[in-house]
Every structure is written in C-alpha cells, then in structure tokens.
C-alpha cells in the first residue's frame, strides 16, 4: 500500500513530527511504500540543517534524513510556507536575495501541488499536526 504523510508542525514544540516519523518508519518496515512526506505550515522547520538538539535527546532532522537515505524517501517542503518561515535552499536564496541557506540537503522545496499529487497518487493520506 502507498502512503502519503503530511506534517503540520515544527520539530520539538509539538509531537507531530515524532509521531509521523514512527508511523513512516513502521510503514516502511512493513513493506509499504511511502510516496512522499510533505512538510507544511511550521512543519517546514523540520528541514533545517542548523539544529543542535541536546545530546541526551533525539535529533529530529537527522533522523528524518537517515530514514530518507535508507528508503529513498521523497521529503518535500512547501515553498510558500517555507518563505514565510525562513526555510531556504540555494534557489530560494537567489530568488529572494538572501545571503544564506539553512535547508538540509535531504529535503527539497517545492509547491503545494506536490501535496495534492501525493494525495491523488497514494492510497492513504495521513496527517500529523497540532
């Protein structure tokens, strides 16, 4: 079965990203396909490569990146939501005249159409939020 995952909240403040991670991991371990993980609203903040969580806590961004690496996950960050919140890749940096990027290379920024497409192409959309 094919799953699409939507995450509406940033790391640490809410449990949404944690729950989504364990759901995604469990789905993959069961042999399901995860078509796409879509980060929306504050969820875009899960893609920052600049986080440094305390050593005795989980590293949410690194954990997503590793899972994506292992399973070739498509992790998409909504561009409109990212712009409001300062999540920037090389292209966005140039387009908006910024002087730095902060996105982790395992994530990519794209449009909301990617969420709609994921909902169409997948058998189930599972949303995690506040």
């Amino acid at each position, binding site marked *: 079965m094919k799953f699409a995952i939507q995450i509406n909240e940033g790391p640490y403040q809410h449990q949404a990203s944690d729950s989504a991670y364990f759901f995604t991991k469990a*789905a993959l371990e069961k042999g399901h396909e995860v078509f796409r993980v879509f980060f929306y609203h504050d969820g875009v903040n899960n893609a920052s490569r600049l986080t440094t969580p305390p050593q005795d806590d989980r590293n949410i961004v690194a954990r997503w990146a590793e899972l994506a690496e292992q399973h070739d996950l498509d992790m998409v960050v909504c561009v409109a939501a990212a712009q409001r919140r300062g999540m920037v890749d090389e292209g966005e940096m140039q387009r908006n005249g910024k002087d730095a990027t902060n996105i982790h290379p395992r994530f990519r920024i794209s449009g909301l159409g990617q969420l709609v497409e994921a909902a169409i192409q997948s*058998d189930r*959309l599972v949303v995690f939020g506040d």
Partner: protein
Amino acid sequence: MSTLHTVNKSPFEKTSLDACLSHASAGANVLLMEDGVYAATKGTAVEQRVKQALDSVKLYVLGPDLMARGLSEDRVIDGISVVDYAGFVDLAAENDKVQAWL
C-alpha cells in the same frame, strides 16, 4: 467506507475528541494518540462519554504514548485496544481513509 479517525489532544484541554465522537459513524475506528491517550484512562470526567462511544465505534490507544505518560495498560478502559506504531499502520491500511481531528 470505513474511516480511521485520529485524536491527538487531551479531552480536558481541547474539544477535538468530542467533535470526533459526535461525527464518527457506527463502525468507525478511533485512535487516541499523543495527548489524546488521556481520554483512554479510567476514572476521568470523560470516562462515561468514552464508554458510551464504545457502543458504536472501536477505540484504540497508542501504547508508546501511554507509557511515556506513565499510564500503565491496566489504567485503560476495558474495550479499548492498545496498539503500537505497527498497529497504527495496520489500522490506516485496513480502513479506507484516515481523518485527523487536529
């Protein structure tokens, strides 16, 4: 079509559990997760509401969320099933869709 409803907030803080239960049709499945797991415990002010819901829907509660909050399984209302993340995935797959009550 069968639906898996998810509720992730405490019934004492937010009204989402009540909104979910008053819209879940007979035979629906409801998963209590994150701070939503408090609704699954015995002796609370919402226990009757939850027990009444059990007459028409099937209730599940996410075990890892219970444990984190210091709630052992023997505190869970009879008739509510404890599942882990793999069980959550199964529920999502077995039902025709998942509806999150955020």
